Every structure is written in structure tokens, then in C-alpha cells.
């Protein structure tokens, strides 16, 4: 790690639902401006980690610092501070169905700032043009395609200029072209806006396209088994990580077990 302070720091983090521990020893850190992909097989706890970082699920143990503030055992004020550091895009987009795309993007600005309506509107419009949706600003989310909804959700996640952006499976359910366009968009935003991205995905092309580093959650050992640049791990990583990044299943017999 170089001299820049990490914006996200997990130390022996334990995550899960209630009494069900899903991952018991997650340790990694993310420096400003980095794009880190969280990946691993189905059921490894990617989405659980995402929900935990998004402060929607209480960590079961360990330590998780977001923008320097400890999430484990945080007070209501701390939680507010943490949430203001984060922009979250959910897998389904989770746009508010009753509001137009523009209103969706304006909503966080409206509720958290005292800016006048015209300023809010301009801010939201410039975000929408950054994700190429300015022509669709007054449509309802249901009138947009899946890829457009995700772009709108990214715009909404960026609306309060959070230093950290969490994306949950941005390319899930998208065709290869749309998904590649989204990857380019993420890279562009990371470069232009100097944002830190934590992206949960298991789409290999996306991982190699956008990730500076990956955090590999192992479904078998229930812990992080590798952290590093994806191209490097593909060659020299632990066996299961190599197999994941090279799309090589274990033999059929073990797979059935």
C-alpha cells in the first residue's frame, strides 16, 4: 500500500445473516480512485458483503472502516456520516417507480442539501448526460431498458458526489454490448470523477476490463483467498482463483457433490 490512506478498510470482517456466518475473515483495503471487483462463485457472500458495506446489514464481527469511520458498533450519527460517503447501485436498479428518471436522480440532492430547485435540476441533468440519458430524463423507470435503468441508478448513486460508489452486479442480465458499454462508463467515471468503485460481479470480461484489483471470496473456505490484479491472479493465484478466472470447472464428479 502506498502513502494514500485507504477509503475502505475491512479487517477480519465477519458477515452473514443473523446466526448464519457466510464469510468469517474478510481483510482487504481500497485506496482512493481504485476500482476493486469483489468476485467469487455463487453463494460465496458477494451480495452479503455488498449489503454490509452499504450499511444495510450489520457486520457480525471484525472491523470495517468506511472513509475512516468504523461501521462496527457505530452510532446513528456515525451511520449517517458513513452513508453520505457511499453511493449504491443495486442489482435491480431499485429506481423509484413513481418518480421520473430525473426526479430519481434529484431525490438525494433534494433531501440532503438546501440547493434551489434549478440548481438541483441542472446537477441531475449533468449526471444524466454523463450516463447518456439526458434524452430520457422525463420518462418513468418502467419505460427504460434494463441497461438504461442501471445507468440511471448509477447517476442516482453519484448524485451526492460520494467518494465511494458500490455497484451490485452492474452487468447482470445485460447483453454483451450493453454490458461492455457500462464497463466503459464505469472506467470513465472512475477516471473523470476520481471515484473509488467497489463492484460486485462475476462477469469475467467485466472483471478484466474494469478491475484494478479483485477481492476473491472463496465459497469453500469462507474467507478471502486472494487480493490482487486479475491478470496476475489468473496466472499465479491460488488454485480455485485461477480456475475461476480461467473458467475451468472442477471435474464433474466433485461438482455434483
Amino acid at each position: 500500500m502506498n502513502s494514500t490512506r485507504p477509503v475502505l478498510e475491512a479487517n477480519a470482517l465477519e458477515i452473514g445473516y443473523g446466526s448464519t456466518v457466510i464469510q468469517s475473515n474478510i481483510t482487504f483495503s481500497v485506496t482512493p480512485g481504485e476500482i476493486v471487483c469483489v468476485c467469487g462463485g455463487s453463494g460465496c457472500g458477494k451480495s452479503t458483503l455488498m449489503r454490509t458495506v452499504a450499511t444495510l446489514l450489520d457486520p457480525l464481527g471484525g472491523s470495517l472502516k468506511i472513509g475512516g469511520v468504523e461501521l462496527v458498533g457505530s452510532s446513528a450519527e456515525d451511520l449517517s456520516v458513513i452513508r453520505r460517503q457511499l453511493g449504491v447501485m443495486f442489482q435491480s436498479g431499485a429506481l423509484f417507480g413513481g418518480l421520473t428518471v430525473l426526479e430519481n436522480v434529484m431525490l438525494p440532492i433534494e433531501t440532503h442539501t438546501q440547493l434551489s430547485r434549478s440548481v438541483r435540476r441542472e446537477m441531475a441533468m449533468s449526471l444524466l448526460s454523463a450516463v447518456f440519458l439526458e434524452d430520457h430524463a422525463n420518462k418513468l423507470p418502467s419505460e427504460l431498458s434494463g441497461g438504461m435503468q442501471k445507468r440511471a441508478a448509477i447517476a442516482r448513486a453519484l448524485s451526492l458526489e460520494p467518494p465511494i460508489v458500490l455497484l451490485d452486479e452492474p452487468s447482470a442480465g445485460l447483453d454483451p454490448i450493453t454490458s461492455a458499454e457500462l464497463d466503459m462508463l464505469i472506467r470513465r467515471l472512475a477516471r473523470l470523477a476520481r471515484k473509488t468503485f467497489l463492484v460486485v460481479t462475476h462477469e469475467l470480461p467485466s472483471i478484466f476490463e474494469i478491475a484494478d484489483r479483485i477481492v476473491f471470496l472463496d465459497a469453500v473456505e469462507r474467507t478471502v483467498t486472494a487480493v490482487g490484479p486479475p491478470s496476475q491472479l489468473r496466472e499465479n493465484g491460488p488454485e480455485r482463483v485461477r480456475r475461476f478466472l480461467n473458467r475451468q470447472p472442477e471435474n464433474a464428479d466433485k461438482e455434483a457433490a
Partner: protein
Amino acid sequence: MDAPVEQPTGAPTRIDFPSSNDDATVNAFWIQSVQPLLANPPAAVTLNLSGSDVRSLAMFSALVAMRRAVEKRGGTVTILGLQDIGKSILQSIERRAIALAPVPKQSVIAQTGTAALAALGMIGSILRFSQQIVVALFWAVRHPRTVRWRDFCAAAASSGADALPVTCALSGIVGFIIAFQTMPSFQKFGAPTMVGIVVAIAMVRELGPLISAIILSGRSGSAFAAELGTMTVTNEIDALRAMDLEPVRFLVVPRVLAVVIMTPILSMIATLSGLLGGYLVLYMNGISFAFYLEQIRQNLAPHDFIQGVFKMFVFALLIGSAGCVSGLETAQGPGAVGRSATRAVVSGIVLVIVTDGALGALFYLLGW
């Protein structure tokens, strides 16, 4: 081949699988051989599959079911003539047998208890949320700019104006029925004019608010639960929380505020409609409208009307909260939103009637 030894259990201890797989044969085999064995598994059984085709799903299921039944009671199963493909499928099924083990069935008493606990749980969650809701409501009254007035207007229109026709029609009919059913008894005592007082007291103090509350629960309580439930399922509630917007303040307050403001008015109009419905019967018995009005004026004090409106205010608070809380506590899955809507209506009506009883007792003790 092993000679089967007869067991005293009565079920056959050697079962020969038929060689044909047509539906009639399968049905006959299932009734004659499989079911008796499943009902009363013997300690040892030989299943002879020579000549039958286990690639038939029906035959294979019979094999698996019988083996499981016998082994469950600690018996031994000998399988003869199973083809290799059958053996490997059987092995792969074995590994999953534990996952398929049947869920122990609850007795009727236990089921009733579970359902009762679930209903109590809903009331528990409403109580847990009620503090949050009350705090948020007071906050909203002090900071009206933060309320989402668009949601408020939508909820007010649907729970107020849109509900007006059906609420008035129902309470008019109820007023009519009360008058109609009590009229013969009062006529027997030569006091048909008393019916007007009965209708007026019943409608103003009880039935106007109650009918409005039940319709409110069915229309708005369920709608709130479905709206917020869908938002929960599609992660919109999560998105709000992640944006540091409290769903209670943001979604529940405008809705609860809307029903609390609108439905007392609705209930007053419903009460009037009930009084008119009741008058229809009086009119048929030759009682004049002026007399009816005079009777109401003499026998009902302002506090009777206030009591009715106050009740409706409490009912609206309960129903609105029950609907929203039920929506926010929606589980995942395709049936979850429907279950939340059902729960909102049932718990809303239960809460209303229980509260109605409690308020009635309270007013009685206070001497109102």
C-alpha cells in the same frame, strides 16, 4: 435368488416390478404393491426389478419411495436386477435424501397457535414501529416542508374521495338494516318512533367509524402494504436507507398523515349516509323527517359526535400504520407482497375492533 421369508406384518416382502410402463399397469402396481408397503413397511423386503425399466420415472419413484419407507423403520431392502444406470441415479438421489426429508407436520392446535403468534407478532411490530411513527409524525408537523406532499395527496385522494361512494353506500345500507330489523320489536311495544334514536346512536357512536375503518383497511391498508411491500422486494427501501433517508419518515408519514386527516371526514359523511338509510325505514312507517331530526337533536349530545370522530382518528392511525409496517416487513419471494397485504387487512381489522371495544369501555367509565 433369496427365498423371501414371510413376515407377520401382512405387507408383501417380495415385490416384482412389472415390465410394462403404460399408465394402467403403473396405476395397478402402485395400488396393489406400493401403497400397502408404504402404509405398513415390512422389516425386510426384496424388490425385484429384473425385466422392468427403471428409466421410467414412475417405476423409479416407486423404488425410491419403498426403499425409503422400509429403511426409515430400520428394515433391510434387497434390490435385485437393477441396471447400472439405475444404480448410479439411486446413489445420486441418496445424497440428497436428507434435504428431501419431510417437514414434520404440525397438529391443528400447534397450527392455530402458530397463526395466533403470527398475528400477535404483527401487533408487536406495529408497536415497535409505532414509537418511530409517532416521533416522525410530530417531526413532520413541526417541519411540514420535509413531508412528501405528493405521496400525501395521492394517499389522501385514494383513501378519502375515492372511498366515498362505497363507504356511503355501505353505511347507508347498514343504517337501513338496523332500522328495518329493530322496527318490528319496537312496534310490538308501540314505540316505532324509538327506532330513530337507536339508528342515530348506533351510527354516530359506533357504526359510522367502524364501517369506514373496515373499508379503509380493505382499500388503503392493503394498498399501502402492497406498495411498500413491492418497494421492499425491489430493493427500493434499501436504496432509501443507503441514501440515508429513513423509510418511516419518507414513506410512512405522508400515508399515515393522509388517512388520519381524511378519514374522520369520510366517517362523518358515512355517518350521515347511515342516518339517511335508517330514515328510509322510518319514512315507510310514516315518521316525518323533521321529527327524526328533532329526535336526533334531543338524544345525541355533541360529545357523541366527537366520540365517533375521535374513534375514527385512532382507527386511521392504526390501519395506516399496520399497512405500512406490514409492507416494510415484507419477505422475499413471489407470494410475499400478497401475504403482506393480507396481513395488513387482517391485523388492521383486528386492531380496530379490539381498540373499539377498549375505547367503548373507556368512554363508559368516563361517563361520556
